[in-house]
């Protein structure tokens, strides 16, 4: 089990306290009715799925309950950093 640092609680806590929230920094469309099918496909379904640095959302569901972002290496599963929601992409 991996330890995850919650940037709100400022503590390393075990993974079972957290819920994974998928890829980070996917912006919700501002004008949905103007989007083409290709843009919907990209927003809903296309994912980076990189082998290496991955930006992802986590929620400290059994702690403070807040969403935050993380950078993790998908080969080693090691977290590079975690940062609060709304902060720029690291």
């Amino acid at each position, binding site marked *: 089990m991996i330890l995850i640092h919650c940037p709100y609680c400022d503590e390393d806590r075990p993974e079972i306290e957290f819920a994974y929230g*998928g890829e980070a920094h996917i912006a919700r469309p501002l004008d949905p009715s103007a989007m083409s099918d290709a843009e919907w496909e990209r927003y809903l379904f296309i994912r980076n799925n990189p082998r290496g640095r991955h930006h*992802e959302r986590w929620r400290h569901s059994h702690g403070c309950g807040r969403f935050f972002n993380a950078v993790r290496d998908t080969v080693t599963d090691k977290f590079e950093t975690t940062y609060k929601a709304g902060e720029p992409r690291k």
Partner: protein
Amino acid sequence: MTRFSAISLIAKALNGHKDWPEQWPDAAPKPAYDAIIVGGGGHGLGAAYYLAKKYGITKVAVLEKGWIGGGNTGRNTTIIRSNYLYDESAHLYDHAVKLWDGLSQELNYNTMYSKRGVMMLAHNVHDIQSFKRHIHANRLNGVDNEWLTPEEAKAYCPPLNISPDARYPVLGAALQRRGGTARHDTVAWGYARAAAALGVDVIQNCAVTGINRGPDGAVTGVETTRGSIACKRIGVSAAGNTSVIMQMAGLDFPLESYPLQALVSEPVKPIFPCVVMSNTVHAYMSQSDKGELVIGAGTDQYVSYSQRGALHIVEHTLAAICEIFPIFRRMRMLRTWGGIVDVTPDRSPILGKTPVQGLYVNCGWGTGGFKATPGAGDLLAYTMAKDEPHPINAPFNLDRFRNGRLIDEAAAAAVAH
């Protein structure tokens, strides 16, 4: 290739099994091929075999970054079934089950396909309704599936706990008798041997590092860790690494890769006669011919290429196994491992052409690709040979994520396979 027969086995046995030749040569890459398959798992080797066997395309190379049978082909829990709800899925998976029949004879290699039956347990009213719907849909599609009462389920699988006092009581079960297991390594080895006998080069330790394309955008070859190879057609069958390969051709794919774990117990005498799965409590189990109980756990929650998963996932599965089969509470587990599975948004595979001319893909089988091995190989070969999908795999195209014709297959729920 030496054909296996009773006579050859006896003759070699009398000689102490000392002079068996290698089953297929460890080929080195040539400068050019008619077609290249990226990924030497069962699906990719199957595609190479059917390209050579059915379509006469024998200048084919299978590029495997590791060793044959070392990826998901050797990491799955070997379950075979085709009791999927939708017409498209039922046809796709049943095409594979039909090919499993007679595969050992065709390859002259014992894949140990055993139709011991796959039984899915219903634990609540929703399960009962959903399974009965599946059974009716399956039978309309010519796929066998039948309803069992708890007593009939217990008779079919004696270790099952059908006590009404259980935390998740067994209220019935759906049984596909044609479902079962096969030995996964022999599927890869059998296809590799049969394909090599037809002229296919099976190349190990050869990772693809780039896809070359001409001025018109069509593929012209691949870059690998063992040099450049020219070809006009590339079939990518790389499971969890498909996104990485597709990025080399500039394509973003609707895939996410997750670790999926499995584990086996110490070997015991035959006690478990079939495959039992329970989607509700997230557990499934069978017994291998070596005697190990083979147990499938769930995926980890996060995207990863690590080929290992967390212990709490395994604990969760074993808790469920102990609840349904109290008889196994004191069994010791021998090994656990993980494989990387590529999951699509609708949990159905992608098998067909890509926007790049000459680039074909077979991916997105998620947590349940082993059962489809012969079918996926056959259909990828057809698609590559004809440059158009077979009617069976036509619905499983990449365009469905744009036009919305998803195949939202609940039977492929992310755990039990």
